[in-house]
């Protein structure tokens, strides 16, 4: 009986556990980890959601996971999109630059050669550099050689409009990996508004579509 009461006390203590420092509280850490079950968007996301902003539809093809992100900041050619649970995707004129919190440690990419060909709708060969943070927190840069070619004009149906685009293909390879990307490029905007892009070896490829004022 005493043992039962002891266990009951420990359980009650767990429920009553508290700390002035939420970062160090076991209960706080556990509840934040499992709180995905009762998910509520963060205030940071909600403040963006209240405004009229671009929305990014994404789908991880191999994993069958879809979702939407909202534009947090347009910084020149770079667009930072935020998910409701504070994951993030950075696009450079619609081409994937980096991801945060989606199971792939893509920290950055050097895309200038690919970008100039893709946006201009020209064929050619380009070098790409991807930097991944490895499991020991070290940045590792990989080089890919890519062949880029136009496929032809395509209409893309966005929720508010139909956009005339040029479909571009990009085939990249390195000693370890190879992947194929497709971009639907809005030449007026000078960016890809829809694409299928390889993220990394862990999550594979992602379909991305930029929509406007999607509310």
């Amino acid at each position, binding site marked *: 009986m005493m043992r039962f009461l002891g266990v009951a006390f420990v359980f009650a203590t767990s429920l*009553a556990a508290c700390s002035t420092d939420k*970062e160090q509280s076991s209960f706080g850490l556990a509840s934040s*980890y499992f709180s995905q079950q009762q998910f509520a968007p*963060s205030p940071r996301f909600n403040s963006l959601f209240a405004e009229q902003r671009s929305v990014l539809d994404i789908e991880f093809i191999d994993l069958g996971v879809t979702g939407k992100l909202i534009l947090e900041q347009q910084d020149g050619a770079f667009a930072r999109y935020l998910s409701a649970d504070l994951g993030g995707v950075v696009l*450079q004129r619609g081409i994937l*630059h980096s991801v945060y919190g989606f199971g792939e440690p893509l920290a950055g990419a050097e895309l200038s050669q690919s970008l100039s060909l893709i946006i201009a709708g020209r064929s050619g060969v380009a070098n790409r550099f991807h930097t991944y*943070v*490895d499991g020991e927190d070290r940045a590792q840069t990989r080089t890919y050689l890519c062949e880029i070619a136009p496929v032809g004009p395509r209409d893309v149906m966005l929720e508010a409009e139909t956009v005339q685009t040029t479909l571009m293909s990009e085939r990249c390879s390195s000693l370890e990996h190879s992947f194929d990307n497709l971009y639907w490029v809005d030449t007026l905007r000078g960016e890809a508004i829809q694409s299928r892009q390889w993220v990394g070896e862990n999550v594979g490829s992602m379909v991305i579509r930029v929509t406007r004022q999607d509310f």
Partner: protein
Amino acid sequence: MQIFRSFTAVFAALTSFGTPLSAEIPTLSTYGTPGLVDLPTASVLPDGHLSFGVSYSELGLRNNFTFQVLPKLTGTFRYTVVESDVFYDRSFDLHYQLLNETDTRPSLAMGLRDIIGTGVYSGEYIVATKTVSEVLQVTGGLGWGRFAGRNSFDNPLSVFGLSSEERIFNNPASLEFSGTGGQLETGRWFQGPASFFAGLDWAFSDQLSVQLEYSNDDYGTERLLGGTKISSPFNASVQYSPLDSFYLKAYVIGGENFGVQLNYVLNPTERFIKGGREPFPQPIRSSSDFSAGDVEEKLRRNLSHEGLVLDGSQIDTTSARVYVGNNRWDVEAQAAGRTARVLTNSLPLNVEDFTVVFQERGVPISSVSTKRSDLEELQYHYDAAWLTRVRANIDDANQVSVAQSKLDFSFEPYTAFSFFDPQSPIRVDVGAQLSASYRVLPGFTLDARLRYPFAGNLGDTDRESDSVLPRVRSEAFLFARDSELEVNTLTAEYIWRPAPETFGRMTAGYLENQFGGVSAEALWYPIDSRMAYGAEINYVRQRDFDMLFGFQDLDAVTGHFSGYYDFGNGFHTQVDIGRYLAGDWGGTLTVNREFNNGVRVGGYFTLTDVPFDKFGEGSFDKGLTLEIPLSFFTGQPTRRVLKQNLQAVNRDGGARLNVSNRLYPLVRDYRGAELSDGWGRYLR
């Protein structure tokens, strides 16, 4: 709104079964080493990998922990329980791959089994393994000791003067065999008759394989206990891997003894959640959308969103210096990057130079200086990690502390463990713990920790200490037995910077659960050095067993000179030389292999002027340590670390005081080498 769901959690679920293993994992034996059923092979695990295994049969329960210490060196710690006549045995193996396999030759390895325990399982071997097809590996070897229980012949190494005399094994039924155990039994290695062994490993698929072996271990020591039959020299097993990292096995030994085994193999170089689950970092703002206001309050609020505490700030028209405490980020460089981002967002655009001073317990440790323009320029650069590191300065922060008074408390459950008691291998108390910490002045902190155990068996033993030394640790169970509400610690602590690159600490009060007194320490640790030196001296008195406010008569002056060295290849060592609690003089050598993500596997031993026979069981103090940051599993940044020490025995020789906040571990994470090592996450 529903569609804006938590889908990073989906990735967590998809990736949370384990870390991808960096290469093919060899089959592991019932002893936890690369092997077939009982026998070893010449394979090794991928470098750095860890294996946790449980193997159960009528021959006993073997709990194995294996670590690939170096690319060719494997170490295994084993805790065995034999139920037929209950006994517990700790043993340790080393396995070294002499040659790796090529197209034309097999891999070749030698090994020592049970080298430092009681010797019940002791045996030595030389073994070769060859992959003869994509699905078949064959193994053959020569063994001594347990490997030569039958069909043996004269020792082929007798030409080198080694004996062919029959080896006498310790009888586990009467573990009061000669000596106290725990020493290297070098005089027995490769002595006595030898036997051949052989086996094969047939892979039907990536998940399913079969092992067959011919073993001359006749389980003589187990048969002495009775109830064990070995009717055949052939053993067999079937292994199935249902998930990455998990290996299930069913086996039969000696034609009579059926068993099951589960191994989990961990790759410590890969986090469970690739890239982590930390929030998307705030943008580095280059626009002029800064709004005026109470700058310090704004800084404090924005830093708190990042798990950082603003202790103080000095801001002028072009530069800002902020003093922060890091409560969240286990990668300290990432904390520096997050702070820098907050500064770009919170300060006027004319503030160009940022200096982040990291503080622990209100004391400045190190500073990281960077420029706003560098952050703006490099934030999208593919090589930003390297470039931002080159442009940042990491300096010693030897300056006056800036910190406000602060009160923290927590009320949580706790657990306290004791391992390897011969009567009960695991003892545990669980209860409630109230901790409070009040920082009166920068560096000066009052701490208290009260505990109340609700349930457990830590004190449920009638095994009296037989120690002939002052009983500084061997009566630990009396503290658990005779206490209820426990004043675990109650201290006043002052940490300060007496000189550049130097730290000082003084602590007084109830320093740990068994001792109270005064402790003083100094540490010299240059910011860019891989080496540090420290000295510590303590006067302590043993506390009453009720763990309230009284003291017993036993007192001690104890202290050490310490040297710390980071070899730069993942190996860290610490040497402590001085006087221990029981008045014995000697030294402790600690060697850790540390992975850059914080996973740490280590071992230590202490030799003092206490003779082995006077020390008692185990002969000298030694143990293993395993630490894994919680973020390694969850992907969420936290400074919580899962830590377990496995001390072979809790005796009085070589015992040290457990005072909190020793300086080297307190400051090390913020010194130059450690900050630089995590820079890959600076902008993450």
